[in-house]
C-alpha cells in the first residue's frame, strides 16, 4: 500500500516521455521499475511487454499488468490512470489550442525537430527490449525473422507473435 503513491508518480512521469510512441518510455521504465524500485525483474518486464503486444488497444496497456503485479487490482487501476490521464489532459488542451498556432512559424520547427528525437527514443526502447529478450540463437532467429516479415509483408503481427509462441512450445516439448 505504501507503494501506491510512488507507483502513480513513476507512471505519470513515464507517460510524459511517450513522445512518438509508448516505446520511447521503455528505457526509463526499465530503469525505474527494475533497477530503482525492484518491483519486478527485467525478464518479467519483458514478458509483460511482449504479451502486451497481443492485447488489443493502446500498445502500452501492459502497464496494467505491472500495476497488478506490484499492488493488486488497485495498483492496476492507479497505474493505468497515472499513465494515461496526464497525456490525455495535455492532448485535450493542446488540441483545442492547435488551430491558434496555425500561423505560428515555430510550429513546423517543433514538429520537425521532435520527429528524429522520437525515432531515437523508439530505437533506444527497441534496443532495451532486445537486450532483455535476445539470449541465444533461437530468440535471435525469431527476432530477425519477425522483423524481416513485418518490413516486407503486410502480415498481422499478432499472427507472428502467436506463431513464435508455438515455436517456443515445440522446441520445449522437443527437448
Amino acid at each position, binding site marked *: 500500500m505504501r507503494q501506491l503513491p510512488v507507483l502513480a508518480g513513476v507512471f505519470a512521469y513515464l507517460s510524459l*516521455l511517450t513522445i*512518438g*510512441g509508448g*516505446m*520511447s518510455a521503455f528505457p526509463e521504465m526499465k530503469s525505474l521499475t527494475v533497477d530503482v524500485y525492484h518491483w519486478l525483474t527485467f525478464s*518479467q518486464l*519483458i*514478458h*509483460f*511487454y*511482449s*504479451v502486451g*503486444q497481443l*492485447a*488489443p*488497444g493502446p500498445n502500452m*496497456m501492459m502497464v496494467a*499488468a505491472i500495476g*497488478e*503485479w506490484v499492488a493488486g487490482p488497485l495498483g*492496476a487501476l492507479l497505474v493505468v490512470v497515472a499513465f494515461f490521464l496526464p*497525456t*490525455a489532459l495535455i*492532448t*485535450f488542451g*493542446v*488540441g*483545442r489550442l492547435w*488551430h491558434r498556432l496555425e500561423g505560428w512559424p*515555430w510550429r513546423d520547427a*517543433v514538429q*520537425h*525537430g*521532435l*520527429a*528524429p*528525437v522520437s*525515432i*531515437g*527514443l*523508439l*530505437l*533506444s526502447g*527497441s534496443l*532495451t527490449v*532486445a537486450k532483455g*529478450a535476445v539470449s541465444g540463437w533461437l*530468440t535471435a532467429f*525469431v*527476432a530477425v525473422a*519477425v522483423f*524481416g516479415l513485418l518490413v516486407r509483408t503486410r502480415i*498481422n*503481427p499478432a*499472427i507472428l507473435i502467436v506463431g513464435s*509462441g508455438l515455436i*517456443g*512450445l515445440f522446441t*520445449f*516439448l522437443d527437448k
Partner: protein
Amino acid sequence: MSRSSLSGLGTPQAELAAAPERLTLGQIFTTFLIIGATSVGGGLVAYLRRGLVAKRGWLDDPTFVQMLSISEALPGLNGTNIAILAGDRLRGARGAIAAILGICLPGAIIMFAVALAYQAHGDRPVVAAMLATIAAAAVGLTFSVTVQLGQSLLKRTSDFIFVLLTVLLVHWLHASVLLVLLGVGAVAVWWYRPRRNSKEAVRP
C-alpha cells in the same frame, strides 16, 4: 480546411456534414470500445482511421491526418491521443472521456487478466519457453515499427544525426530521457527554426 471546431468554441459537431445527427455518448463509447477490443496486432491508428473515417464517416480524412500529426508531436500514445481529439470533436469534453474509456478498457482488462495468469503460471518451464520466443517476436515487431516510422519521417542527414545523438545519450550513456528530450529536442527544434525567405525551415 477549417479547423475551428478543434477550438471547442461553439458546437464542435456543427461542421460535421458527414455525421447525420448528433452522436450520443453511448454511440461514441461503443464505437471506441469496439475499436479498442478488435485492434489486435498493433497499428491502432489504422484501425481508428478505418472505424472513424472509412466506416462511419464521423471524421474526414484531412481532419484525421491533422489529429495524427498533433498526436505525434505530443506525449501520449498516438491511438489514445487521437481518441481524445476525435471524442472532443464529436461531442466535446464528455465525448473525449467516452472515447478514451472505450479504447482503453478492453486492453486494460485483458492485461489485468494476463498478470493474474502470470502470477499463477509464469514460472512453469513451458510458459517460460513460450514467453522467450514471444518476447523475441516482440523485438522484431518493435524494430519494424521504428524502421517504418523512420522511413516516413527521416529525410535529411541532420535528421539521422539527431536520431544517433538520442540513441547514444539514452542507450549507451544512460542519460535521463527527459533531459535528452528537452536538450536534444530543443537543439533539433532550433536547427529547423523558421527562416525568412523560405517556406520550409530548410538548413542551407
